[in-house]
């Protein structure tokens, strides 16, 4: 019989992987099949409303502005993002979503909301409150763990390199 830790740890990893996989498959099968998940997350970080600076968006995504610039170049070419110089400070670059970008962003939010709605619909009000409180605690704990690496040059990049190395090891 598996220990509680094993059940929890396997479920956490599986949920994370399956949410990402489902999102990826729904993207490929939907209206925005030319977008990768990473690109969709970039659109979500920019958001459907006010324009944002490159620096703040890169910070929210946990990537460098250099990495974001490459991603934005592609998204501009694909017609999802508009890049403009700030009218008050020409050194600042602002990015916002085109109509298609807004559509993609909102459709993706809907995907997440529908998923959450279906999960919650299986519980009564009391259980839903309890479940949300527990999920929130897990969320806070994992976010705390991530903050321990604050100051690391590029956490995402480091994580990707680790993933690449372990893939190589398995080959």
């Amino acid at each position, binding site marked *: 019989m598996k220990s509680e830790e094993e059940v929890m740890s396997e479920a956490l990893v599986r949920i994370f992987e399956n949410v990402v996989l489902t999102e990826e498959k729904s993207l490929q099968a939907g*209206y925005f099949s030319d977008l990768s998940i990473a690109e969709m997350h970039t659109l979500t970080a920019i958001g*459907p*409303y006010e324009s944002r600076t490159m620096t703040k968006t890169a910070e929210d995504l946990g990537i460098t502005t250099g990495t974001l610039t490459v991603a934005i170049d592609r998204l501009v070419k694909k017609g999802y993002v508009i890049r403009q110089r700030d009218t008050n400070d020409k050194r600042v670059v602002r990015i916002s979503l085109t*109509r298609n970008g*807004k559509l993609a962003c*909102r*459709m993706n939010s809907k995907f997440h*909301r529908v998923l959450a709605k279906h999960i919650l619909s299986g519980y009564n009000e009391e259980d839903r409150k309890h479940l949300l409180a527990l999920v929130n605690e897990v969320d806070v704990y994992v976010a705390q763990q991530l903050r321990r690496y604050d100051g690391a040059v590029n956490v995402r990049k480091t994580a990707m390199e680790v993933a690449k190395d372990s893939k190589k090891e398995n080959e």
Partner: protein
Amino acid sequence: MDDSRREQIYKEVIRILSADLEVSAEDIDTTMDLNTELPFDSLQLYEFVIDLEEAYNIKLPDEMLDQMKTVDDIVNLIMRLTDGK
């Protein structure tokens, strides 16, 4: 004053709706249910929402849209959000 503003918003909402859904404006009734009586798929719904946001310079997040059942509800919401603009 409110009546003429409502009439204006109503006309514009119907115009946008009929363009996004590619249906005649005469076929749209204010009491129609957005989810069951109008031929929306989710992409068209968001096209409609984004067009409204841009036309009235307002924000219509999903939490707000969840409360909207009819075209009338949308008109009332726009009235409320643009009050004083």
